[in-house]
C-alpha cells in the first residue's frame, strides 16, 4: 500500500465524516458508496484503480466547474430573456451546450485548427505521439489529431444533413397524413409499420449492399430508415392540433391546405419537433458511426470517427488508448445532445402544467 492509497483513503474518510457531521445525507451516501467501492476495487485492482477514480473525479469536477462558468458567462452575455432561461438551466444542460459549441467551432474552423490536412501523410505508420503529432499517426502515418478535428466536420456534418433529410420526409408525410386523413393516412401508416418491423441497422446493411457504400447513398438510406419515427410523432401531435376549433375556422374561411399546414399547424408543433430533432440526431449519428465502423459508411480518405476507430483498432492490444479517442468523441457529443434535449423536454413539459 503506497503513500497514494493512504492519502486517498484518508481524504475520502475525512470527507465522509464531514458530510456526516454537517448532516448532508446526499453527500454522505455518495461518499460512503465511493469509499466502499474504492476499497473493494482497490483490493482487486491495486493502486491503479484508485488513481483512475481520482482522475475521473477530477475530470468530473473540472467539467462541472467549466460548465458553471460557461453558464454564468452566458447569463451575463445573453439578452434578458435568454439569461432568464439560462438561469434555470441545470448544469448538465450548460455542459451539453458547451460541448456542442466546441464541436461546432472545431467543425467550422477545422482547416485553421488542424495542423495538417486530413489525408496528408506526415510520419511513419502508427508513429507514437510527439510534439508534431499530438496523438500520433494512424496506419498510413496521417496525423490523428488533425483527422479528429476534420472528423467533427465530416461525421457530424453528414449526421446533421441526414437528420434534416429524415425530418423533411417524416414531417411532410406526417403533416399530409394528419391533414388529409382517410386512405392517405392509412396507407402511410401501414408503410411505416412495415419499415419499423425490420431492425434499422439490418435494413441499412441490406440497402447498402444494393446501392453500394458512399456518402450520398448512406445519407439517403439512413434518412429514409429513420423518418418513420418522425412521421409517427408529427402525425400524433399534428393530429391533436388539426381537430382544434381554430383550424375548423380557417377551413371555413376557405384557406388552402398549404396555409393550414404552414401557418396554423407547424407553429404549434415546433417545440416537440425540436426536441425530437435532437433525439433523432443522436440515433442517426450513432447509426452512421456504426456503419462507418463496419467499413460501409463514410469512405476513406475522408476523416471520420467511426472508420478511425476501425483503422486503429489493432493498437488496443498494445494497451494504447488511440482507438478510444474518436469513439469517445462520438460518445461525448451524443451525451451532450441528450443533456440539452432532456432540458428542452423539461422546459416544454413544465410550461404545459
Amino acid at each position, binding site marked *: 500500500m503506497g503513500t497514494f492509497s493512504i492519502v486517498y483513503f484518508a481524504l475520502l474518510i475525512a470527507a465522509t465524516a464531514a458530510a456526516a457531521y454537517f448532516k448532508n445525507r*446526499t453527500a454522505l*451516501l*455518495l461518499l460512503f458508496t465511493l469509499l466502499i467501492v474504492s476499497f473493494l476495487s482497490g483490493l482487486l*485492482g491495486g493502486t*491503479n484503480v484508485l488513481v483512475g477514480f481520482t482522475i475521473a473525479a477530477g475530470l468530473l469536477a473540472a467539467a462541472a466547474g467549466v460548465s458553471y462558468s460557461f453558464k454564468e458567462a452566458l447569463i451575463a452575455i445573453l439578452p434578458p430573456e435568454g439569461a432568464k432561461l439560462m438561469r434555470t438551466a441545470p448544469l*448538465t444542460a450548460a455542459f451539453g451546450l458547451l460541448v456542442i459549441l466546441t464541436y461546432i467551432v472545431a467543425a467550422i474552423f477545422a482547416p485553421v485548427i488542424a495542423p495538417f490536412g486530413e489525408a496528408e501523410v506526415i510520419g511513419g505508420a502508427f508513429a507514437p505521439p510527439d510534439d508534431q503529432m499530438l496523438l500520433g499517426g494512424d496506419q498510413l502515418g496521417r496525423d490523428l489529431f488533425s483527422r479528429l478535428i476534420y472528423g467533427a466536420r465530416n461525421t457530424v456534418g453528414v449526421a446533421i444533413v441526414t437528420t434534416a433529410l429524415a425530418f423533411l420526409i417524416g414531417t411532410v408525410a406526417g403533416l399530409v397524413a394528419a391533414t388529409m386523413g382517410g386512405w392517405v393516412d392509412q396507407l402511410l401508416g401501414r408503410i411505416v*409499420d*412495415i419499415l419499423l*418491423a*425490420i*431492425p434499422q*441497422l*439490418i*435494413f441499412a*446493411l*441490406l*440497402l*447498402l*449492399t*444494393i446501392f453500394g457504400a458512399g456518402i450520398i447513398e448512406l445519407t439517403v438510406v439512413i434518412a429514409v430508415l429513420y423518418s418513420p419515427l418522425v412521421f409517427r410523432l408529427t402525425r400524433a401531435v399534428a393530429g391533436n392540433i388539426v381537430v382544434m376549433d381554430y383550424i375548423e375556422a380557417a377551413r371555413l374561411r376557405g384557406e388552402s391546405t398549404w396555409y393550414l399546414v404552414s401557418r396554423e399547424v407547424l407553429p404549434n408543433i415546433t417545440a416537440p419537433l425540436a426536441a425530437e430533432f435532437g433525439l433523432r440526431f*443522436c440515433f442517426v449519428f*450513432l447509426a452512421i*458511426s*456504426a456503419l462507418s*465502423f*463496419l*467499413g*460501409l459508411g463514410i469512405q476513406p480518405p475522408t476523416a471520420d470517427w*467511426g472508420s478511425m*476507430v476501425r483503422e486503429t*483498432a489493432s493498437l*488496443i*492490444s*498494445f*494497451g494504447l*488508448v488511440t*482507438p*478510444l479517442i474518436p*469513439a*469517445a468523441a*462520438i*460518445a461525448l457529443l*451524443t*451525451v451532450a445532445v*441528450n*443533456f440539452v434535449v*432532456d432540458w428542452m423536454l423539461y422546459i416544454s413539459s413544465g410550461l404545459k402544467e
Partner: protein
Amino acid sequence: MSGLAGLIVKRLGLGLLTLLIISIIIFIAMEALPGDTAQQILGQAATEENLAALREELGLNQPLPVRYLAWLTDALRGDFGISVANQREVAEQLGPRFGNTLFLAAFAAIIAVPLAITLGVLAALFRNSIYDRVSNALALVSISSPEFFLGYILVLFFAVQNQFFPPIASVTPGMDFWARVEMTFLPALTMSLVVMAYMMRMTRAAIINLLASPYIEMARLKGVPQRRVITRHALPNALAPIINVVALNLAYLITGVVLVEVVFVYPGVGQLLVDSVSKQDGPVVQACCLIFAATFILFNLIADVGSIVTNPRLRHPK
C-alpha cells in the same frame, strides 16, 4: 378464454403477414443487385452459352413471382441457396453461427435482465434520490456510447491491462461450455451494458407510472405499510410493463449483436452479414436479414402477447 386465444391468433397472423411482406422486400432488394447470380458465379470471362446454361439450371429464367415462391419454400425448408463468394451452402455456414449468436444474446440477457429490473425498480422507489440521479446519468452515458466504444474500453481494462479475459472471442465448435462462457464474457458484458441502460430506464418509467395510479394512493391512505404497498399492490401489476420492456429489449439485443460481434471477432451471424455486405454476396445477405427480421418480429410479438395476457383490460376489449 376463446377471446384471448382469438386475440393471440390474430397477432400471430399479423406477425406472419409482416414477415411475408419483409421477405418480399428482401427478395426484390436482392434482385436489384447489379448483375445476376449466374454472372457473379461464373465471373466476367463467362461465355453466353455457359451463362444461359447456368441460368437455366438455377431457374433464373422464370418470372419474378415464380422465383420468389421457389426461394421462399426453399428458405422455409432451411435451404437458403448457395453463397456467391465461396460456392458453399448458405445454410451450412449459417447454422453454427446462428447457434453462436443465440448463445451470446442469451448470455447477455441472463446478465442484463435481472440486474436491469432490480436497478430500475430501485430507481423508481428511490426516485429523485442521489442513487436515482447517478444511475440515470450512467444509463444516459451508456445509451449514448456506441457499442464499439464500450467494447474497446472493456477490452483495454479487462483483457490488455489486466489479463482476466481473452480480447477476442474466437470460439470453435468443439469447445466445452465453461471455456465458451469465459471467452464470450466480454462481448456479453458489452451488450448487456447497452441493453441494461434501456431496460432500466423503461422499467423505472413503468413503475413510476404505476405508483402514481389512484389505487396505490388509496392503499397508502388507508394505512397499508410501504413495504406491503410495494409487494402486494404495485409489483403484481408491474409485471405487464416489465414483460413488455424485457421482450422489446431482447429484440434490440438480437440486432445490436452485429457491432459487438465485429469488435470481438466473434463467429456469429452479424459478422457474416457484415462480411457478405462488403462482398455483395446476395444469398447470404438475404438469409441473414431474414433471420434477423424474423427474430426481431418474434420478440415484438412476444411483447405484444405478453402485455395482452397480463393485462385483463386488454384481454376483454370493449
